[in-house]
């Protein structure tokens, strides 16, 4: 018995010293650069590490201490850290609509005073003000712009003697009906080579609705629907039924990523966000793209639009200063650098759309976007409407995804679609604080 007890007590310190792994780092010394704990989603070897490294190389008084969280689980861990009172200085927002709940819970530091204190030129952020301001408070600064575009491989259009989306934009004819028509014309309709692709996310099903400012539920909790909510899913159904677009269910089941759709030549046209040129550049570089699709064939233009006043959709990607940070000034400096010219050059070099566009940025973007007209449309100054952008957004997106699937499986008719959705939206509105 004695032996067992002695062994047990000897085992405890051994276990503690061996099992601990590593202890938390001590607080940085008062001298030297201020260390800013900044959280983001990353595998530590991607665009965010490039951005952080660039900042650390360019600054001596503030240094980022990156805290990387696996991208797929970012929201779960970040929510736990914020609620658990983790010491952090700043963090990136992966799912923009989460900002509303985080703001309500007091996790986000308003930046108005810091903007004045640091003489940050906020006028450069005006394009994104709808996405980063709530009730007059600036809650974030973007490090990436947020717009959706039509991306396409020009080769199949030329070979079939069809007008390209860019030509139709120039003529003012790139409407949603024309998108359907052109998708049908360029498609092989054989179930293997399609005309266009919309990805599986709920937000990807509602571009026409978002362009027409359909909020589904507005910021005041009022249900906001019109025929464009139905038209959005009708477009997909028409194209899926005619084998002119990969079926949503197939994309989900086979886990086919939208980049693969373009890389493999499964569809020559894709409507997706501003980060895609970087993915295409990566695909060309790594030899993931079919041989027949050359970098010079890659084109970018506006989304289809039924209105003469063109709106893109999307929201910028941004970061926050944590309300409990002990280094708020330093954390703001980090955000300001990302949102300014220096950060913009880094982002542009990665093939992403920076929040500010100038000649330097355009020159860098031109390395990945070879076609001049594509670069023009990629960097043009147009209004952007955020999609599902209020505290109801994440719930509404799930609802939209569910209704889209029901509609595509013929489990809900055209006549019932809007009334049924209206009912569900009202429930969300009534049950959300």
């Amino acid at each position, binding site marked *: 018995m004695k032996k067992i007890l002695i062994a047990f007590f000897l085992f405890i310190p051994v276990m503690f010293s061996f099992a*601990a792994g590593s202890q938390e780092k001590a607080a940085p010394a008062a001298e030297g650069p201020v260390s800013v704990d900044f959280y983001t989603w990353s595998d530590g070897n991607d665009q965010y590490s490039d951005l952080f490294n660039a900042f650390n190389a360019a600054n001596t008084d503030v240094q980022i201490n990156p805290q990387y969280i696996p991208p797929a689980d970012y929201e779960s861990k970040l929510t736990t850290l914020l609620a658990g009172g983790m010491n952090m200085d700043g963090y990136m927002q992966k799912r923009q609509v989460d900002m509303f709940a985080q703001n309500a819970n007091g996790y986000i530091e308003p930046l108005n005073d810091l903007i004045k204190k640091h003489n940050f030129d906020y006028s450069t952020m005006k394009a994104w003000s709808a996405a980063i301001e709530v009730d007059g408070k600036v809650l974030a600064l973007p490090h990436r712009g947020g717009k959706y575009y039509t991306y396409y491989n020009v080769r199949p259009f030329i070979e079939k003697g069809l007008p390209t989306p860019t030509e139709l934009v120039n003529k003012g004819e790139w409407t949603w009906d024309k998108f359907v028509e052109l998708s049908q014309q360029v498609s092989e309709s054989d179930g293997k080579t399609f005309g266009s692709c919309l990805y599986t996310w709920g937000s990807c099903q509602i571009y026409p609705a978002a362009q027409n400012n359909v909020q589904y539920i507005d910021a005041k909790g009022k249900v906001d629907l019109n025929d464009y909510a139905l038209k959005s899913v009708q477009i997909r159904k028409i194209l899926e039924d005619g084998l002119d677009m990969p079926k949503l269910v197939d994309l989900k089941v086979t886990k086919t990523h939208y980049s693969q759709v373009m890389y493999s030549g499964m569809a020559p046209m894709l409507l997706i966000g501003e980060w895609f040129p970087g993915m295409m550049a990566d695909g060309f570089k790594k030899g993931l793209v079919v041989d027949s699709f050359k970098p010079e064939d890659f084109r970018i233009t506006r989304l289809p639009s039924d209105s003469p006043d063109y709106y893109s959709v999307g929201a910028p990607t941004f970061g926050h200063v944590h309300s409990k940070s002990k280094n708020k000034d330093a954390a703001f400096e980090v955000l300001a650098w990302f949102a300014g010219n220096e950060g913009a050059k880094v982002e542009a070099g990665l093939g992403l759309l920076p929040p500010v566009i100038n000649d330097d940025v355009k020159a860098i973007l031109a390395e990945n976007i070879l076609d001049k007209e594509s670069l023009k449309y990629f960097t043009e100054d147009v209004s952007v409407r955020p999609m599902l952008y209020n505290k109801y957004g994440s719930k509404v997106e799930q609802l939209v995804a569910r209704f889209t699937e029901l509609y595509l499986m013929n489990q809900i008719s055209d006549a019932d679609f809007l009334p049924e959705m209206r009912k569900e939206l009202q429930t969300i509105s009534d049950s959300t604080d």
Partner: protein
Amino acid sequence: MTSKKIIQKCTTWILILITSLFVVVPVYIIITASFKNERDIFEAPMALWTSNSGLFNFKQLDKFPLYIWNSIKVTFFCTVIQLGTASTSAYAFSKLKWKGRDTLFVLYLMSMMIPIQVIIIPQFMVIKTLGLYNTHLALILVGSFTVFGTFLMKQFFITLPDSLMESARMDGAHEWTIFLKIVLPLAKTVLATVLIFSFRWFWNEFFSALIYLTSPELKTLPLGMTDFVSEYLVYFGPQMAAAMISIIPVMILFFSLQRYFIQGIASSGIKG
């Protein structure tokens, strides 16, 4: 053999075959996919080997020896501690008489019904206050107790006759002596069962590791698999290769303790 018996036998075999397919097919997919490139993985029909197949996915697992070592470390300590806490508490709940014993056990059982997402924030606050965030010790401490293991062992201990303990007590044996020298040797099968369950759980444990660990050098195997999930893409090939490697220790453990495992689950009394 009558035709009725033949039909019965055929039906049995068909059912066994279908059930086996549910287990074998995912394993087959993991093994074949671990040698394929991303484009070939979802090709239908699923080929065993393609012209592009090779070891390239395994070459991306250069950090995995460290992740495996971390998993071994955490799993070992958690499993050993859980065996200790489950066996002692099960003994106290089944063979010692004290006030409020059954009420406390019901409360303990009820904690099984609470999902980890509910308790993770207060638990995280405790770990943070103790200064254990980003340490393996955090994982070990939060994994020190097993309600299911305690319940399983209690059910086994109940089947042991009280006369065994009574006679030992009359001979002057201390309660620890009774527990260590009489009860535990009889509980090998159920201990093996709890060991397998605990090992399997901690070997595959992802959520707690995600929450409590942040340094790359502390990552466990399931957390290490997220290295192949980028913002926009999941690289299934190396993930499958990692999954294939991670299955091996569990398989070895299960097959080496299979006899005990089945006995432990099935145990419902003492052989005379």
